[in-house]
Structures are given as structure tokens and as C-alpha cells.
């Protein structure tokens, strides 16, 4: 039923049409790289070098040592100091600092006397994520500073009065797959998935809707091409470009961003092919219900947003309300992201990822069937 030479002819026509416009070439191969760089550098939830304001009313050797301990791990960076607490308030209001450290008078004396010295840490909660993490770091640093000081026998006469160190539980933590806990390692592989779906959407709109806008779809319809051939000829070039983009973007992720790739490249390639089919189906579906490229782009924008939000891309799924967690189960991007991250970071193989791959394949088949039916109908 499907004639290979006819499909090949259409394929050649499509590729020639796409790449005749140098802008398309830039869009197809330049835009993914730019997006990857942008996401790779901007999407960063690591809390480091938090701008910190210090009000040191104690001005002793102990308070300076605490400050050193505070800044040494690199989480906090002192960008302002003052003797007046009001300046700290103003800096927080302006948003020029996110954390304020106030060391009250008598800190050194309390520490030496074993009376439990307290410092105050003010955190700007407007960025709740940074605030949560910074608060944790600050508390940990101050406590271990105190314990280290007391453990060293204390300073001065009061040292002997200091309480014996409560040792108790010794929590030994280890983060697997990403020992430095760098958010980039988690986010960059996900951008690969995002770029694939964006590319598929844009290109289907360009190849299908543009044809209708230009009125050349009628010409194709009177040609001996069958609907199946037409669809194949329309989708194959997009799928090929998608795979080329995948290789390009994965290479940049590994070589430029040093993202570990622990799994099987063939598994990623196979899963990507399935995901591309699903995205193509979605893109095609939207294209067939839109009359103009304008409408198609708007439609795709409206579809892609929920897909991204409900995929676990930047926003974890397990914290969503149950209703939204349920919705994520219908999202092909969710399954593909699990595969991409599993292959990249965990070196997971088919033995672990088969459920995701199975669901993704079923979805791709379903979406493509729907899109084909719809496409046939619009041709008539």
C-alpha cells in the first residue's frame, strides 16, 4: 500500500523545503544549543554564595572565628557589615542580601562560660527554596562551630564548665548518583527531553499548517500520494531532525556540562524515538485542528505548558496535590524524563525502566492513531 519511492520523494521535498530557508537551519540546530546553555546555567537551585549581611556586636576573637566558619564552606558570602541592626533590616527589605547574621554582645563570654551562646540568623523567606536550604546550612554551621570549640577544651577559664559533648547518633549520609548534589546534573538531561518535544511541535506546524496556509495542501492531495504516505513523508523528516538534535544536545550535555552518562546509549536512542513519535502525534493533532500557523503555535503553547509543569521537569511530582499527581500519569513527558534521568544518572537499564518504556510506547501508538484518523479526515 505504501510506496517507498513516493515517500522518499516527499521526504526529499520536505527536507529541501525546510532547509531552503537558512533561518530554519539556525532554528533547528542553533536554538537547541542556546536553550541547553540557558537552562544549564540559569536553572540552578544550588544554594551557594548567598549574600549575607553581618552585624557583629561582640567583636571578639570568637565572633570572628564564627564568621570564618560561616563563610568557609562557600554557602554564604558576606557582602555587607554594619554596627546597626537597622542597616540589616534595610538590606533585607531591598533584597540585596538574603541572610542576616547578628552576633550579640556577650557571645564569646557565653560560649566560654558554657551558657549556650546564641546568634540570630535572619532569612529572607521570599525565595522559600533558598531560605529553607540556607537556614539549614546556617544552623548546622553554628552548632558544629560551638561543638568544635567546646571539644577543643573551650577557651578561657569557663571552658571547664562546658557540658560534655553529646555524641549520640552519628548520621553518615551519602548522596547517590550525584554526590555533590549539583542541580545541573538533574536538570540538563531533562532539557534534552524538552528540546525534543519543542522541535517536533514547531516542525510539524511548519510542515503541515504552512502547506495549508499556502494552499499547496490541495496540490499534495491531488498527487498520487495516499494519506498514509503523505503522513509518513511529513513526519519522517521531523523525526530524523529530532534524532539529530538529540545526538547534538546529548553531546553538549556530556562534553560541555560534564553530565555523567552511566547507562546504555542505545536504550536512550530507542526511548527517544518512541517519544519523538508521541510528540509528533501530538503536534500533528494540533496542526490538523488549527487553520493557521498562528493558531497552531498558540495551541502548542497551551499544550506544552501543562506538559512541562506536570512532568517533574523542574518541579517535583511527589509534592504536588493528589489531583495533579494523577494528571502526571497521562503525560508522556513524565515517563520520558524518568527514562532520560535513569539512563543518564543512574545507569538504569531496561530491567528497571521497562514500565516507563511500555507506557510511553502505548501512548505513542494511541496518539499517532488518533492523529492519523484526524489527519485523514482533514484531507477529505
Amino acid at each position: 500500500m505504501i510506496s517507498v519511492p513516493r515517500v522518499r520523494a516527499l521526504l526529499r521535498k520536505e527536507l529541501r523545503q525546510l532547509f531552503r530557508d537558512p533561518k530554519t537551519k539556525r532554528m533547528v540546530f542553533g536554538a537547541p544549543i542556546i536553550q541547553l546553555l540557558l537552562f544549564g546555567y540559569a536553572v540552578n537551585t544550588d544554594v551557594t554564595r548567598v549574600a549575607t549581611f553581618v552585624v557583629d556586636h561582640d567583636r571578639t576573637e570568637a565572633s570572628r572565628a564564627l564568621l570564618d566558619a560561616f563563610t568557609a564552606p562557600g554557602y554564604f558570602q558576606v557582602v555587607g557589615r554594619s554596627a546597626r541592626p537597622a542597616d540589616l533590616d534595610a538590606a533585607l527589605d531591598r533584597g540585596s542580601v538574603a541572610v542576616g547574621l547578628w552576633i550579640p554582645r556577650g557571645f564569646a563570654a557565653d560560649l566560654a562560660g558554657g551558657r549556650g551562646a546564641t546568634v540570630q540568623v535572619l532569612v529572607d523567606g521570599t525565595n522559600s527554596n533558598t531560605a529553607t536550604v540556607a537556614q539549614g546550612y546556617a544552623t548546622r554551621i553554628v552548632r558544629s562551630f560551638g561543638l568544635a570549640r567546646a571539644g577543643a577544651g573551650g577557651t578561657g577559664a569557663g571552658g571547664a564548665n562546658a557540658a560534655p559533648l553529646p555524641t549520640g547518633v552519628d548520621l553518615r549520609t551519602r548522596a547517590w548518583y550525584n554526590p555533590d548534589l549539583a542541580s545541573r546534573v538533574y536538570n540538563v538531561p531533562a532539557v534534552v527531553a524538552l528540546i525534543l518535544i519543542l522541535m517536533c511541535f514547531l516542525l510539524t506546524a511548519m510542515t503541515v499548517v504552512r502547506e495549508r496556509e499556502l494552499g499547496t495542501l490541495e496540490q499534495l492531495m491531488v498527487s498520487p500520494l495516499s494519506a498514509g504516505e503523505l503522513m509518513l513523508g511529513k513526519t519522517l523528516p521531523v523525526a530524523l531532525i529530532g534524532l539529530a538534535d538529540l545526538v547534538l544536545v546529548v553531546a553538549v550535555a556530556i562534553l560541555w556540562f560534564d553530565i555523567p552518562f552511566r547507562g546504555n546509549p542505545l536504550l536512550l536512542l530507542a526511548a527517544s524515538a518512541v517519544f519523538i513519535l508521541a510528540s509528533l502525534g501530538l503536534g500533528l493533532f494540533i496542526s490538523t485542528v488549527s487553520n493557521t500557523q498562528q493558531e497552531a503555535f498558540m495551541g502548542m503553547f497551551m499544550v506544552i505548558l501543562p506538559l512541562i509543569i506536570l512532568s517533574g521537569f523542574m518541579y517535583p511530582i511527589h509534592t504536588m496535590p493528589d489531583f495533579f499527581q494523577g494528571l502526571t500519569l497521562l503525560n508522556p513527558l513524565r515517563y520520558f524524563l524518568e527514562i532520560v534521568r535513569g539512563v543518564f544518572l543512574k545507569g538504569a537499564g531496561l530491567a528497571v525502566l521497562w514500565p516507563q518504556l511500555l507506557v510511553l510506547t502505548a501512548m505513542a501508538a494511541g496518539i499517532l492513531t488518533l492523529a492519523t484518523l484526524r489527519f485523514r479526515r482533514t484531507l477529505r
Partner: protein
Amino acid sequence: MIDAVRLLAMARKETIQIRRDPRSLALAFAVPVLMLIFFGYAITWDVDDLPLAVVNEDAGTRGERLVDAFTASGYFVVAVRPARRSDADGLLVRGSVAGVLIIPPDFSRRMSAGGPAPVQFLLDGADANTATIALNYAEAIAGRWSRDAVLSGRTVALPADAESRVWYNPTLASRNMIVPGLIAVIMSIIAAMLTALTIAREWERGTMEQLASTPVHRLEVVLGKLLPYVVIGMADVALAVAVGVTLFGVPLNGSVLLLAVLTLLFLLGALGLGIFISAALKSQVLATQVAMVATYLPALLLSGFLFDIASMPAVLRAITLVIPARYYVAVTRGIFLKGVGIQVLWVQGVAMLIFATVGLGLATLAFRKRIAA
């Protein structure tokens, strides 16, 4: 130079045109609200109920009490209790638990001796953000429990402690952070999209010649086209703010008037940018695409809405300085959460004034009445 009558006539023409296209008008109101509800409900970084695998090999009873301390905190729930340590690997690879707590056989004995009693806590570090927060929680829980257990009643303070206080958002609810920023991000996208079509449409429909043959000045055209959209934009923001306050319960601590004034400044710039794109490209498809690319990603990624500008590399930090959304995010957060006034936000006000001037200036310059060009 500007004639009020001609300007208003232009604005009226544009208003009629908008009214005749109720679908687009409905979209202009529905999209922001839908996006707000969607983002507002779905995105949260509040870490609680993290699924944990517990391997308790402890011969005594203390191990179980440590587990209780973990679950009592509300941050962790015990999802599964594998019999062997080796089962933990599979759970982490599949991502079915966020961490594994392993309590060795001699835990109770070592605790009775005063410690140290090692406990292993393995984390799925792939999601670095969740893992970091989980790590902090785990250390805090283990530390507190172990002090209570070792001291058993004796109250001995830590040698040094931090008393931390969170300002502006004491509960650290991520919704309070997301909703005000989201209003800013949505408005930057919507505003440019609203006007991206206006001038390109005249070119594509051939009505530009009619417009060119009238005595209307190009600044009047730009301002006249802008006016109805300013009204729509302000109504959009009002709607979004109402949704944020009533539906999401985000506190609006600052002055509503200041928010309105600064929003107006922001809208002038963002709508002007849309008109500029429209006038420069003369094609509706191209203009929409460019408007979307030029506003969507920068507003989402480079505005500080979700990702701290301070932790970006220097090049990106410099780029954020020319992203209007960055200033508007600071404005909405400042007024909503911090309740700060003009004495703090004048910086953002000045920046947005510059954007408004540049945006409208560019739009006027790009708009040419010469048909041949």
C-alpha cells in the same frame, strides 16, 4: 504634536477591533488565570512526606525510636521496610524512595554506651534540590533525637546555637514565593503577545494603506493602539492579584496603589515591546513567535522567579539586567510579601521607566507610514 482627538479616535478604532474578536479577548483573560491556577497549585517545593526505606537491623529498641523521630517530623514517611540492605539499591534506582535509613545491629548497645552510634542515610541525589533539603532535615532530626536520648532529661544547651527567623514568609510556603512572581512572569508574556499582532495585522490585511493615508501621526498610532491594551493588561493584573489573594491566600502586605502605578509602567514597556516587534516584522506569525521567544524563556528563567539570579554565572547575571520581568518580579514580591514602599522599589521603578521609554520609542521609530518601504 499629539492631537488628543486623533489619539482617542485611534484608540476607539482599536477597541472596536478588539471587541469584534471576542475569542482573543476571552483568551487574554482566561490564559493568565488558568496559568496562575495551574502553576500555583502544581508547583511546590515544600518537602514533606518523603518516602523512606528503613532497614532496621537493631537488636534493641532504640533503633525503632529513631525511626519514630523521623516519621514524627512529618518530613518523612516509611514507605517500605526491606529485609536486607542490598534491596535498598533497587529501590533507589527505581526512584521509588527518596532515601534509605540503615540502622546497624549494635545501634542500641552503642547508644546506651553514649555513642557514637553510626547510622547510614543514603539519598537519591539525582534531584539535588529535594536531596539537599532532605539531608538538612535528617541531620536536624538525628541531632535533636540523639541529644535527647543521650542526655535523657538533663538539660544541657548546645555550646552555640543559631536562632533563625524567617522574614516575609515565615512558613516558608513556596506558594507565597511562586504566586507573586508568577503574576509578573505571566504578564510579561501576555503583554507582548497582546500587541504583537496589532501592526502586523494592518500590514497583512492591507489596511495599513488606509491608516497611512490619514493624517494620524505615528506616535498617535502607537499610543492609540497601546491604550486599549493597557486597560486590558491592568484588568488582567487586577484579576490575577485577586486570584492570588483570595484563592491562594498570598498576603498582600504593601500598597495596592504603588502596585498599580508600577504595573502601569511595566505594561507600557512590555506592550511597547510587542508593538515594536509587530511593526518591525510586519508578519503576524513571525511576530507571535518572536514575542513568545523574546519574553517566555527570559521571563521564566532569568527573572529570578524560581531561580536565584545571584547563583547564576556572571554573563547571565549581566543579561538579567535587561530583562524587564526581573524588575517586575522584584516589585510584585516586594509589595506582596515584604510590604515595602517606594523608598525601596524606586530602583525598579526607574528601570521600568527606562524600559517603557525605550519600548515606546522603538515602537514609534519602527512604525513607518511609508508603504513602499
